[in-house]
């Protein structure tokens, strides 16, 4: 249990750090974000909102930094992320609530698919070294070096513009009203296929290479040789002994690189104009909608932390050593 307690404490610290970073960024930046925000809002911001903005950015000279910080934490504790400029008057939280399911659906599912398939391929390549499978390595290397968004551009150029198989932007047919019908779900899947495929293809090579290297390392462990010496079937040695142990660092590296992957996939949403949180962040940055920007960052961070906690539990379930008492 100690393992989990330690991890939970760590995540609490990380969350606090993210919130604090979020608090300080607008305060240490040069310039006056409130004025910039009002200018960017172009008259859509009522004068009533100015105190709230000031609280958010801590411009109020009558308050000490510490009391501003306490105010900020209190706001967050009540789920108040401020009010968006661009979505006039809507609380940031509501705007984000609209976008979040799309991101979790697209990025979440695509990342898991990519992880699972990549890990399987990687264990195959790592196990059968010196065969044709090794030729997949240079291809993976190439794909791991390409920026996600560029691959998305190419995918659009080929599959939407040239072949016309998939729509190039959006998340469902705009003529439809979102509901729980099969038609609508079908449309969501149809619109999501190309972005999801692009995410899978661009992130899979990382998992392949990582798992391949872990397989190579684990394969030279004594217990794998012992398993072979016992005359177990190839399948049992591969999945029960080699891959079963190689997956442990793979899972922890999954947790560690989630932040990076999520960052890259959010850009995909921008390229595909997919109405998730990445696209929202992009719009917020362009519109200088500071509350929305910071809200997006915080929510993305919390989502990544939640995924990390999940990965930790998976790790704990896979590795008996973490369950050790004391």
């Amino acid at each position: 249990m100690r393992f989990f307690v330690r991890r939970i404490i760590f995540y609490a610290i990380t969350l606090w750090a993210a919130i604090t970073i979020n608090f300080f960024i607008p305060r240490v930046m040069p310039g006056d974000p409130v004025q910039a925000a009002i200018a960017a809002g172009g008259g859509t911001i009522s004068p009533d909102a100015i105190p709230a903005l000031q609280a958010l950015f801590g411009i109020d000279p009558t308050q000490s930094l510490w009391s501003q910080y306490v105010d900020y934490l209190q706001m967050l504790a009540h789920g108040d992320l401020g009010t968006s400029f661009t979505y006039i008057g809507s609380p940031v939280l509501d705007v984000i609530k609209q976008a979040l399911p799309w991101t979790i659906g697209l990025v979440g599912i695509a990342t898991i698919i990519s992880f699972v398939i990549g890990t399987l391929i990687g264990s195959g390549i790592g196990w059968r070294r010196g065969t044709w499978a090794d030729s997949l390595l240079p291809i993976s290397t190439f794909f791991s070096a390409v920026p996600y968004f560029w691959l998305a551009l190419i995918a659009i150029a080929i599959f939407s513009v040239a072949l016309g198989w998939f729509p190039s932007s959006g998340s469902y047919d705009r003529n439809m009203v979102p509901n729980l019908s099969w038609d609508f779900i079908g449309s969501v899947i149809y619109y999501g296929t190309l972005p999801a495929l692009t995410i899978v293809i661009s992130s899979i090579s990382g998992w392949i290479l990582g798992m391949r290297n872990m397989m190579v390392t684990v394969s030279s462990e004594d217990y794998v040789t012992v398993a072979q010496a016992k005359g177990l079937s190839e399948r049992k040695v591969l999945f029960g002994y080699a891959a079963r142990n190689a997956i442990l660092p793979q899972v922890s590296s999954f947790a560690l690189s989630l932040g990076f992957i999520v960052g890259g996939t959010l850009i995909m949403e921008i390229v595909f104009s997919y109405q998730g949180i990445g696209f929202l962040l992009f719009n917020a940055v362009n519109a200088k909608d500071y509350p929305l920007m910071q809200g997006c960052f915080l929510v993305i961070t919390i989502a990544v932390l939640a995924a990390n906690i999940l990965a930790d539990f998976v790790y704990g379930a896979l590795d008996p050593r973490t369950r050790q008492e004391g």
Partner: protein
Amino acid sequence: MSAVPELQRAARPAHDPVLEIKNLSVDYGYDDPTHVLRQVSLNLNRGEVLGLAGESGCGKSTLAYAATRLLPPPGLITGGQVLFTDRDGTQSDILAMNDSDLRASRWQDMAIVFQGAMNSLNPVFRIGRQIADGIQAHKPGISKKEALERAGELLDMVGISADRLRDYPHQLSGGMRQRVMIAMALALDPQVLIMDEPTTALDVVMQRQIVEQIAELRERLGFSVIFITHDVSLLIEIADRIAIMYAGEIVEDASSQDVYRRPRHPYADGLLHSFPPLRGPRRELGGIPGSPPDMSKLPTGCPFRDRCEFAWDACAAITPELTGTAVAGDDPRRTVACLRHTPDLVQAAGFEPKPVPERLALR
């Protein structure tokens, strides 16, 4: 052993080999190989404990792994035979087997206890499951419950309570893990048990217990053992016969009492003098000057000559062969690879033969 003349071999009373390694050659690396074993021959008789000794890097573990074809890449077996004789007398060459035959033979015929007990167990499975999966792989009809029951009996046999079956490896001490490995190796009642430095990582007390346990189990179950260690004094206590390796070759092969009291090879002599005969704190090998040669650029002639006080010009030119000794009255079955024992060979090559030095001709 195949170098022994045919006459002597026939005269040997207890010649009942369960494992015959013939001219086994092993390379390390594929493109620019290092010849780590060069035509090594060695016999293991039924019911015998054969000790394999030598400094680290001399190829003793390589020999064991190559004979079972467990040598990891870039190891490559480049020649020879490993003949296993079953209880009913059928012979099979392990090096000629296909994958499925080899799988079927493994653990059933020959089992191995590996060097590091720490890493020999899969850290994520319970030990019961790890013993049972080996049983199930060879006895398709057996249920998981029966296999686990058998695993419990095996643990009991090595002095571990059967309720440890549900433990993970990290919950066991080093000595217990090594016992688990022994129990696991005996699961299918193998005829040959290869033990690669089974006690090196353990403290002296634990070493003692394990060695005694192996001896006792062998009495009861009657398997043959190849015991690999660099600790010659340990071997003298437990082995019937000892083969000493140097630079990828066997340099002396004799009964353990003969090796202990009457070593014939200068290296065997040096090895004996570098270990205290009685149990005591382990020391660095100090009895032999110099260090083992670089296997990747082995000179011609005797590989030991640079460290040998008895070397002369012939040693640089002629590669010694494993033959009978030149000391009158020696056990005819013992062999040694030293030019001092083969005056004919030296003469044939045009050198002046030299006699066996007094220290290597003790009676």
